[in-house]
């Protein structure tokens, strides 16, 4: 018998005027020592499933049917007190954001020991000792000291470790991890996922891993349940799911991943429409309205979760891979992967030979740190950007990638003029932005626009979208007022938004639409360069693919250039002609996208590539590298020489003494700054063409 069995679980959330049917007949089971991955897009009910098991539903939420059996005991029949003794004791849970999920005014030691005191009746002293033990179990350095600090004194990764220690203090049989690494950097993500894996084996627990990230789930789960609109649509072993998805929704999810099309550069598949409103769930298959294969039967009858065998079940009348589709899905003589790669490299080389639009040289940005009893004096500086040079050509996309705190966003801000550089120069079409007279600077600013990560936060919530769009045009007094309205309509057409959207407020849009509005606003002044700062990282994959496709279409239509800033290497690789890798304020490697991706020179780039979870269990299993150890050092007093040396597996004495210079590796201006590169430098004759850096 399975450790946890969920049978026909139905959960509803009562709102003022309606009832959300959040979960409708969920079946799941997890064995001891097994990891079940629950995957799906936002609103599909994956978190609601976890919360139903814990019986920690939000206000108005209620389990209205089904069974939840832990070790044969029906959790739904327990009283509130009995359930208190299950939570934190038999089931431990970790949450997405360790910053908000820990009590800010209580030391982490007390927060962990509280759990021990509740369930084991331990004395304060015993419980504290157990807390220190749990902290050392999760790899917290000097646990006895760390037990006495408050959450804000720890880094995000360490906070999540503390959170895990809290969940595991009583050695539960089941651990539920709800997006445990979504708020963390990739290098830390890998460390945390590895930790959960190790602890699972050590303690023989069952784990439920809830995530939207197909890459995370591919490497960690033994079996997977794919959820859509409050139902499990497909469930099987991880290998079988990725090798042979049967539900059209699963297939569509995979096809919208940018890494699947990175080599071919094909348009990404995007699922049309939006998930159904669960206050009035549709009859028939809930995915039918967005499914490219749906027939009438799908809209009237609901397909049961069944399948070829017990191991692979899916809820679809016309599963993918069935003979019906073979005929239409067969591609016609696809070009070989190699040919495509060569072609892409050639194309991007063409672009790098185009006119240089933006050129930054030796860009430096320091933020002062002050201290002092009465008079504040400068005692140091946060070195956010340290001597970064790069250029963006007409019609080119340059991707900037790195962990949070690496300075990529600051570079973006400096380029659009939201911050003033401490040193270095910014040349736009050959004109120095800092030296140019006011009026000219103003005109140049029009040509560089910014696209934000969170378009909602970046728009005044009390302004109609029409006014949001009008504002840049009004500020720059572009054309006549009538002409401005005409231009707005034209742009809305271009980004695929209905004109009626102009009369709505920002909160009335879905995430993907908002990002379209964000892009439309950036386009209003007909810029030549758009600095896009994590424009898709808040979006679900299927929506992300829509935005990425749109950005590519607009680029070829309008000849735009992008500086695309992201922590997500697969998105960067898909969209960029060239990739720059930043670490702690330094540009450590830059070169053609394919070259950087498949043939990196810098150890940091290699580490990043190894760290990023790939949505392919075979690739994930084959990974042997440990990724990048440790955490980002402080930028107030960055390491001498090569800034990466403290975390570099190959670091030697020279790395601490001499700062490595960007050197050419290969013919395509693939540059990297490393004393001990992963492959030898290009022959001395191949001079770096400074214009192409």
């Amino acid at each position, binding site marked *: 018998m399975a450790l946890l069995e969920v049978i026909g679980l139905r959960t509803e959330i009562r709102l003022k005027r309606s009832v959300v049917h959040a979960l409708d007949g969920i079946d799941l089971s997890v064995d001891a020592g097994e990891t079940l991955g629950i995957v799906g897009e936002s609103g599909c009910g994956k978190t609601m499933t976890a919360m139903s098991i*814990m019986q*920690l539903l939000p206000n108005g939420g209620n389990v209205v049917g089904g069974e939840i059996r832990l070790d044969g005991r029906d959790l739904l029949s327990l009283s*509130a*007190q009995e359930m*208190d*003794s*299950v*939570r*934190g*004791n038999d089931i*431990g*849970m970790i*949450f997405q*954001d360790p910053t*908000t*999920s*820990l*009590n*800010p*005014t*209580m030391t982490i030691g007390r*927060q962990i020991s*509280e*759990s021990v005191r*509740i*369930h084991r009746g331990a004395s304060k002293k015993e419980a504290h000792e157990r807390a220190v033990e749990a902290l050392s179990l999760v790899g917290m350095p000097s646990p006895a000291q760390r037990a006495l600090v*408050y959450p*804000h004194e720890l880094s995000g990764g360490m906070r999540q470790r503390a*959170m895990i220690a*809290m*969940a595991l203090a009583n050695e539960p049989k089941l651990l539920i991890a709800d997006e445990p690494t979504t708020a963390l950097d990739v290098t830390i993500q890998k460390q945390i996922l590895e930790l959960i894996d190790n602890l699972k084996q050590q303690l023989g627990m069952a784990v439920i891993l809830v995530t939207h990230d197909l890459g995370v789930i591919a490497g960690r789960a033994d079996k997977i349940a794919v959820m859509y609109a409050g139902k499990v649509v497909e469930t099987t072993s991880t290998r079988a799911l990725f090798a042979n998805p049967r539900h059209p929704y699963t297939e569509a999810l995979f096809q919208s991943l940018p890494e699947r099309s990175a080599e071919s550069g094909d348009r990404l598949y995007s699922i049309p429409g939006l998930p159904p409103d669960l206050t009035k769930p549709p009859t028939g298959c809930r995915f039918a309205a967005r499914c490219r294969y749906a027939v009438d039967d799908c809209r009237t009858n609901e397909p049961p979760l069944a399948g070829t065998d017990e191991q692979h079940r899916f809820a679809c009348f016309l599963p993918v891979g069935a003979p019906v589709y073979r005929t239409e899905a067969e591609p016609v003589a696809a070009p070989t992967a190699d040919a495509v790669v060569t072609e892409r490299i050639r194309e991007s080389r063409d672009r790098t030979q185009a006119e240089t639009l933006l050129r930054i040289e030796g860009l430096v940005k320091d933020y002062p740190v002050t*201290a002092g*009893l*009465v008079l504040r004096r400068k005692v140091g500086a946060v070195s956010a950007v340290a001597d970064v040079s790069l250029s963006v050509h007409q019609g080119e996309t340059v991707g900037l990638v790195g962990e949070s705190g690496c300075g990529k966003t600051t570079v973006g801000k400096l380029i659009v003029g939201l911050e003033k550089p401490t040193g270095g120069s910014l040349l736009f079409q050959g004109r120095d932005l800092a030296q140019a007279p006011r009026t000219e600077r103003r005109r140049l600013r029009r040509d560089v626009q910014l696209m934000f990560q969170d378009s909602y936060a970046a728009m005044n919530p009390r302004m109609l979208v029409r006014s949001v769009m009008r504002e840049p045009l009004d500020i720059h007094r572009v054309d006549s007022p009538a002409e401005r309205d005409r231009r707005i309509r034209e742009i809305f057409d271009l980004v695929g938004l209905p004109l009626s959207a102009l009369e709505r407020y920002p909160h009335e849009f879905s995430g993907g639409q908002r990002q379209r509005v964000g892009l439309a606003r950036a386009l209003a002044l007909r810029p030549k360069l758009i600095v896009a700062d994590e424009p898709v990282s808040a979006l679900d994959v299927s929506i992300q693919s829509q935005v990425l496709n749109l950005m590519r279409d607009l680029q070829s239509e309008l000849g735009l250039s992008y500086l695309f800033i992201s922590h997500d290497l697969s998105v960067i690789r898909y969209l960029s002609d060239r990739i720059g890798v930043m670490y702690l304020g330094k540009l450590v490697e830059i070169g053609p996208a394919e070259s950087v991706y498949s043939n990196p020179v810098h150890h940091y780039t290699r580490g990043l590539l190894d760290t990023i979870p790939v949505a392919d269990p075979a690739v994930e299993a084959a990974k042997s590298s440990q990724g990048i150890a440790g955490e980002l050092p402080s930028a107030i007093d960055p390491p001498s020489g090569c800034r990466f040396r403290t975390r570099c597996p190959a670091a030697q004495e020279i790395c601490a003494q001499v700062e490595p210079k960007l050197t050419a590796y290969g013919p395509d201006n693939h540059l990297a700054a490393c004393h001990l590169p992963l492959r030898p430098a290009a022959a001395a004759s191949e001079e770096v063409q400074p214009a192409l850096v």
Partner: protein
Amino acid sequence: MTAYLFRRLLQSVVTVLMVTVVSFGLMKLMPGGPVRAILGSHATPANIAHLTQQMGLDRPLYVQYWTWLDGLLHGNLGFDYVVQRPISDVLFSALGASAYIVGVSLLLALLIAVPVGMVQATRRNSAVDHAFTVFSFVAYGIPTFFVGFLIQQWFEDDLQWVSVQNQVSTFTEALTHPEAICLPVLTLTITTVAGYSRYMRSGVLDQITQEYVRTAKAKGASARRTLYGHVLRNALIPMVTLIGLSLPALVGGSLIVEFVFNIQGIGLVTTRAAQQNDYGITLAATLLTAVVTVVGSLVADVSYAVLDPRVRLT
């Protein structure tokens, strides 16, 4: 922290000094002048000249200011020629009664408002919550003097529970006649509870939807433990600011309550002084309020840092 305190104290001193300059200057700009105020409009020029000289008002302004400031630094607020008593005497006897009434009602208000706010927040939208909400809005909406009159009417005239004939004007009197101050305290408490309980309610509501509360429940903490162990402390933090900002009322008194119940408190004394062009007392009271306001906000900031480890005073 020490460095912070040092800097804040230094800032406070500068602030208070500026208050002395401004208020001293403003007093000098007032029409009529103190001599006329004391001697009346029929005074002879000789008398005026005599008193002007006696009070030192014929000296240059900066000398007058310096003399006054020098006195202040030595704890000497000066002599009031209108009531012919040292200013400190007048002020502190009035201060005692006021501070006692305001202090007791502030304390009572907190003791009532904190639990009420918690009950309201944890039973949101219940009958209890609605009842207290109605009470708060009504008590907050009715002017204080009207609440005072109502209470006087009920307790003194209708029920005859308390009879207040005697005036309270000093701290000792207030202490020895608790029945004399219970009605003003009640009045002040009602209006203060109305406001504070709303703050507490929304403070707790803010906290119970936080994710760390969900974490606490996920480790098996009971509803009670979650409320007292996690929510309460975090919800009290914003209340501290509120209390710090209420401190000046301790020395400002509550003019309206003092007026209604005829208490010779600081509010009444200061108002009367201002009406009678009694420069000495007005000036001293202004300064006192400034000092306590500055100290109050410093106390609020420091206790904020003590309660919330995230706040680092640097």
